[in-house]
């Protein structure tokens, strides 16, 4: 982890009619870190993540992702990011191999490169026998892990994870975080939203959103110290109640 910012957000505002979903957000994400983006449901996390991925345009503000301007260089940003939404995102009626080939294909990877990386991935996860299985027939935990592996298959510089562990059991969640650590070790910046506070502890730095504003941004240890509490759960409750 360096202190070189890979995402720069200045005065991000997003309005839907009169409703202000993002109210002057300012933050930076450093290259190679695991950045936790926390907040209650409806606090504006998904809106912000969608803007950073180019799925939505901001009302105003200066944004820079992976060194590219979000207004003018959207196409370049898209080549350098990966995205996994809270909805599971592989095609159920395609096999694992076909899903990988499809997603890697739209990022322009050559067949040779795809095969090489696929063999690698299947070996690392020890799931060579799942190669020709339809995704629909796999258990949810596996689907989730595979969706993540596919999201970083084209080796993006940043991967955005929007509540990636929703609805899975604690063991799978732990395994999922092992994959996230692995990706971070490989130099991929992780931008992750969650509302599991134990997951917040795994992040390098955490921001907490309340009602469209960022109320706190620090390391988990720093936040606990500032608010004089013993865990992230209490940090979160203190901030949310204050509003």
């Amino acid at each position, binding site marked *: 982890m360096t202190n070189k910012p890979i995402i720069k957000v200045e005065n991000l505002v997003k309005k839907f009619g009169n409703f202000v979903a993002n109210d002057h957000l300012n933050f930076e994400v450093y290259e190679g870190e695991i950045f936790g983006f926390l907040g209650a449901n409806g606090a504006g996390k998904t809106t912000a993540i969608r803007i950073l991925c180019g799925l939505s*345009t901001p009302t105003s503000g200066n944004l820079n992702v992976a060194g590219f301007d979000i207004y003018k260089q959207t196409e370049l940003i898209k*080549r350098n990011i990966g995205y996994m939404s809270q909805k599971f995102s592989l095609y159920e009626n395609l096999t694992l191999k076909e899903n990988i080939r499809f997603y890697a294909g739209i990022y322009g990877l050559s067949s040779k490169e795809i095969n090489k990386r696929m063999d690698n991935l299947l070996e690392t996860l020890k799931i060579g026998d799942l190669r020709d299985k339809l995704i629909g027939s796999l258990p949810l935990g596996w689907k989730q892990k595979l969706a993540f592996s596919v999201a970083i298959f084209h080796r993006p510089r940043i991967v955005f994870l929007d509540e990636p562990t929703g609805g899975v059991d604690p063991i799978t969640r732990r395994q999922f975080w092992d994959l996230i650590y692995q990706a971070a070790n490989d130099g991929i910046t992780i931008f992750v939203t969650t509302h599991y506070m134990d997951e917040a502890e795994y992040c390098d730095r955490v921001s907490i959103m309340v009602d469209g504003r960022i109320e706190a941004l620090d390391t988990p240890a720093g936040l606990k110290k500032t608010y004089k509490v013993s865990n992230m759960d209490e940090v979160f409750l203190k901030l949310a109640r204050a509003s």
Partner: protein
Amino acid sequence: MKQFLGFIKKEFYHIFRDPRTLLVLFGIPVAQLLIFGYVVTTEVKNISVAILDRSKDDVTREITQKIIESDYFTLTQNLQSDTQIEEVFKTGNIKEVIVFEPNFAQKLGRDGTAQIQLIADASDANTANLIVNYTSAIISDYVQKQNKLQLMPMQIKPEVRMVFNESLQSVYMFVPGTMALILMLVSAMMTSISIAREKELGTMEILLVSPLKPAQIIIGKVIPYVALAFINAVTIIVLGNLIFGMPVNGSLTLLLAESLLFISLALSLGILISTIAKTQQVAMFISLFALMLPTIMLSGFIFPIENMPVVLQMISHIMPPKYFIIIIKNIMIKGTGFGFVWKETLVLIAMMMVFILLSVKKFKIRLQ
């Protein structure tokens, strides 16, 4: 380009691995073609007729008057010669030509008998049958009333001729209709559902985050259905011909080109629906109610448009299948060339442009 081909390949996997999709794509067209053999019988009203009066005497004028006074017919044109008959059938929406023989009143007075020829456009077999029966009834009613006043009984023999479909086969009606229906179903419904499915599953977001451009995504989703709908069109033409003896009197190339145009139109409509619908179910309901029912009820497929209340007639003018049915009936049955269907073709092209523009606009709004 390679990215794009991979996309299309994936789309075909979806189609061929879903038994329900396959059933809708290939089972329903064949079933419907066979089922619609039994077309609903309908009533006629305000049918356009032309009259060729070679006699121009009191009796012919009186009979003409009787026919026009009935609610069933509207006199659209007075013809001067035989040669005009075929022309009015091809160009106008005239369904029947009534021909009085020369010296009609004179013959009637002298021999007690005269001839009327009723020529009907039988490309719509049901309607043709009804029109001819109604006309004959009006004439015989006139004769009966006259006979009460006169000593010498007279007789007027209507001689019936059907043009374009002499044996009055209803297949001529339902094959074009079924074709319009199937192409609409496959193209609009299947694309709108398949795009809505990506939205529902969340994969659409992943695609939009990828370097693929929105236009590429949409075109990639649509192309497989163009291919499949085109296969359907060919299947219907072949089956119609082999099983029901439906001819293709005009140019096959023109017929296929017009089918392709209609498919594209239906696809653009499907895309428009998918920009509105968030889930597959919504997409299906919109397709069913906004497309299927009007196609069956208001396109002239089963119920003659001339017969509808004015409001519904107006609505029928904005039904794309109506124009497609007119076009393919012209080509298949009357054997006419592009010169006779260019207007309808233009209407279809214009409609397609409107749908594409609307969906582009909608799509942009959604991305805000």
